[in-house]
């Protein structure tokens, strides 16, 4: 087992545990925005797609990489926009009502 591999597995394990702890605390009230936000965040695969689309190593990889950038970018934009739109709707009772 090489050290890069070892550290990658380490990072995955720790991030998974951290994810469990953080997400368990999210109120069920916000489970739909939670899903759209994690969706937008996991569209970070954009960085992998960009590297492949821009490296011009082969025609196939440029085409597939470009499609992947389109998909991820759609998720980044759509995901953050709809999460914020939903959260704006959650209001407390106005005082005096």
């Amino acid at each position: 087992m090489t050290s890069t591999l070892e550290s990658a597995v380490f990072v995955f394990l720790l991030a998974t545990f951290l994810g469990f702890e953080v997400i368990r605390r999210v109120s069920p009230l916000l489970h739909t925005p939670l899903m759209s936000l994690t969706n937008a965040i996991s569209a970070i695969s954009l960085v992998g797609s960009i590297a492949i689309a821009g490296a011009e190593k082969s025609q196939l990889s440029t085409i597939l990489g470009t499609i992947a950038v389109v998909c991820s970018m759609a998720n980044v934009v759509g995901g953050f926009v709809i999460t914020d739109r939903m959260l704006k709707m959650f209001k407390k009772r106005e005082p005096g009502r």
Partner: protein
Amino acid sequence: MIATYFTQLSYIAAAALFVLSLKWLSHPTTARRGVRAGEIGMGLAIAGTLVLHEIVSYQWIVAAFVVGAIIGWPMGAYMPMTHVPQRTALSHALGALAAGLVGTSEYYLHTGELSTFTMTALSLEVILGFLTFTGSLMAAGKLQEWLPSRPIVYRGQNAVNLALLAIAVAVAVYLVGNPGRSGLFPVMAVLSLVFGVLLIIPIGGADMPTVISLLNSYAGLSAAAMGFVLDNKLLIVAGALDGSSGFILSVIMCQAMNRSFTNVLFGGFGQVQMAAGAAEQRNYRSATAEEAAAILEAASSVIIIPGYGMAVAQAQHKVRELYDSLTRRGVDVKFAIHPVAGRMPGHMNVLLAEADIPYDRLIEMEEINPDFPRADVALVIGANDVTNPAARHDKTSPIYGMPILDVDKARTVMVIKRSMSPGFAGIDNELYYMDRTMMLFGDAKHFVGELLKEMTGARVGA
């Protein structure tokens, strides 16, 4: 050199911001800050990637950014809230497709030089990515009702599905041992695509909350696998967060429907259970809007139980008016939210929040159940199986053991329903035959409107 440092720093900052983003999402008052943190993290990571020295041409990247934004913007800004579940399924599909495609191009760029470990991660990325892609498209189609939302089942379905998955995994294992056999790669990809379709075919509309959560988890895991392939820690972190989030939500949904997790993993669920025994004629009491309005006005506490039927009838805004009208009269009105109300986790809360109902009035199942015995009226609008007391005591009932809202314990129960026809699970609801239950027949939106008219009428007359 400076560029490399910038890339590394931006990735570390982005990982921290993503964790903070989810942390802040835990409460409605800080949630929007969470979105900002996520956006900043994403911006930093993109900037950090664009300066990488291996990127030699920007024309395709820029074009793809523009096209992606054009597709993404309407998916975020104009999508109606009732359509959020299909939108979410669609974005799982897009994310998973991206992972699958990146895995594919990585394979063909480095055929023959991939280490055992990288090839394992790559196979996982491609299998999960492609099966989630077609599976999520199917789920979106079912939610949009472009595909029949009833489950399609046939004999030996599980055997066929499992065999297909087993072949895909076997091909993957062979490829790990012999990464140069590029002819087998498309076989693995196609099998995964087909498996995704077959996985969702037997699943019915009411099970969508679990399925969406599960696909969310798969999409996250394929992104994490991509991180292993590209040796990118930020991808691993974000993928792991997404994967664990989807996993937690699927567990919550499973518990809310009293299904085991293995049952869901093997896709052998969502079949309509035909309750044995023809429905015997039982007596129920129906009431008019006038009678119901009189009781509601005399009540001091009312709990409203909304179900997906309310959203189908587009009755949310009328329900808000009812809430306003009762609150003005000094009635304490709360909403009881079952975890699987709606078509995805938390969907009902979003629909009610959109109708301007304050979120502190939306109470989860465990918290509100002790309040039912003290409630004067429990008003059920478009919910059925989650209110059936049979789940508590009738061991022969298909929903036995499912956690339910204790609606039957309220002093008076009102049920707005189109007719006496049974709900999704195909079982009769005991609640409807209780002495304290009034059946209010009609379309949810129309009937709540009638209730409002009666109530305002009474006030004018007084």
